[in-house]
């Protein structure tokens, strides 16, 4: 199967600090590719470069066969590259529903429409509601995003990403801050959804990673030090030393 997403030799420095060093990896349809590594390994910075939030110093991002390296965040999002944020990134004054409806609106026709009230567009609201429902947030649809609990905000992030009907989903620690029960539900949900797209998943929750991932790459100091199936990664001595800890 040809790759949905391919990273070729991405590199990024912040001053003297090499945060991403010659990273190449790929993602296929229906695949969950997990990216793990210790704090400060450069995982978020890599997602920033894949999503277009940051420009790499060198290398390419190829999405659906197109070199999108020169495109910004919005242009890549329109092409079907959705991301969630490690640090919650929502519209605090919009209701949960309207946060999602904005994402639906981006995928359904022009937004240079000036007179009809957007809040009354039943088609947008229905699809937004479906995405909220999928995340178990339907009952909180009318609540301003700023008034949601931390866990609910994380779920809303995911609902927005899903409502974008992406081809690739970049998830930056989607489970951080959610309770054990909630996390389990989200894992089941993501497993059920993954046939629709490819997922590049950053997650510190190792049981979740091993439950979801088809492939795992390990990042340390900006370099991919290992990449393979969950079983291979579990067995890799270098990885155990760098990250997993020997007690695991």
């Amino acid at each position, binding site marked *: 199967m040809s790759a949905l997403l391919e990273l070729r030799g991405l590199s990024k420095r912040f001053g003297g600090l090499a945060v991403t060093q010659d990273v190449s990896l790929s993602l296929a349809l229906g695949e969950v590719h997990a990216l793990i590594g210790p704090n400060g390994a450069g995982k978020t910075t890599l997602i920033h470069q894949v*999503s277009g*939030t940051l420009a790499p110093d060198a290398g390419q991002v190829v999405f659906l066969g197109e070199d999108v390296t020169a495109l*910004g*965040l*919005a*242009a890549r*999002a*329109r092409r079907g590259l*959705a*991301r969630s*944020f490690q640090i919650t*990134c*929502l*519209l*605090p*004054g*919009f209701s949960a529903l*309207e946060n999602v*409806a*904005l*994402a639906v*609106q*981006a*995928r359904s026709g*022009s*937004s*240079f*429409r*000036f*007179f*009809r*009230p*957007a*809040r009354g*567009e039943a088609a947008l609201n229905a699809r937004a509601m479906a995405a909220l429902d999928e995340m178990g947030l339907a009952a909180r649809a009318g609540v301003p995003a700023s008034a949601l609990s931390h866990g609910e905000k994380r779920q809303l992030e995911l609902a*927005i990403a899903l409502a*974008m009907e992406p081809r690739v989903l970049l998830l930056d620690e989607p489970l951080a801050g959610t309770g054990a029960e909630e996390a389990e539900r989200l894992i089941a949900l993501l497993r059920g959804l993954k046939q629709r797209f490819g997922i590049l998943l950053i997650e510190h929750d190792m049981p979740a990673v091993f439950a979801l991932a088809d492939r795992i790459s390990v990042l340390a100091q900006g370099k991919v030090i290992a990449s393979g199936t969950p079983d291979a990664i579990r067995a890799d001595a270098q990885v155990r030393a760098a990250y997993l800890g020997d007690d695991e």
Partner: protein
Amino acid sequence: MRWRDASLPLLVFAALAIAPFIGFGQGHALTLLARAMIFGMAAMSLSLLVGGAGLVSLGHAAMLGVGAYAVVVLDHAGVTEALVVLPVAVLAAALFALLTGAVAIRTSGVHFIMITLAFGQMAFFTTSSLAIYGGDDGYTLFSRMEVAGSRFLEGRLAFHFTCLALLAGTWLLVQALLDSRFGRVLRAAQQNEVRAQAVGFAPYRYRLVAYVIAGAIGGMAGVLLSQAAEFVAPAYLTWQRSGDLLFMVILGGLAGPHGALVGALAIVLIEEWLAELTEHWRMIFGPMLILCVFFLRGGLVGLLRR
């Protein structure tokens, strides 16, 4: 639009509609009300930028100035038909907004304030150097425009209700824009630009369109201002005037155009009232404004809502 946001403006419009018949029908009172309504339109157009798009412009008076000077240029050329003058003036202001906005909107925050101020000053100095239109002294219009050949606007009440109709129209338009898909993108990008981009909206074009629409409405207000005074001068374009407009918007409240509407009416009328009380009215007005900024976080309309 929420009902509580609509009830206040509707009340204001109703009051303005009956004002001429309950003791505010003399020339002086009507002149004052016209001025208040015209600044109301200008302030509401600015509130689309400040409250809706998060673009704090300190050059909005230039939009009024371009509209007013379009009237002057056409008057000088002998064209005084409103059906020609108004569209030309509005388009001129929109074009000015497009050209300056295309540059200004690439910046943000303090840079945006400074660059809109710079464009405003540029327009100000341009008008004061236009010797054939009176330079600093300004230009006295021979009379108000005709409307389809009739001298309709000369009538005091006709002018009052023309302003009122355009005021109500401006409110409807700005509110509709904010509630539309377009306005939703603007508001989203104001609250969290990265979030708007992450779902696929690059804010630049939306902001530019908002800037052009606000400029066009500002141009219309400039035309009306020229008609109210039958006189146009560079004083219309000073940065202090832009500051006044910004103040009306912020004092009234950023929650929607109704805030700017209330802010504009309040400032124009209070200014007048204080000026009648004492010639040192500025000494009272200044501290009053400062207190308002400190204590009225949601603006005047926020106060009314409580």
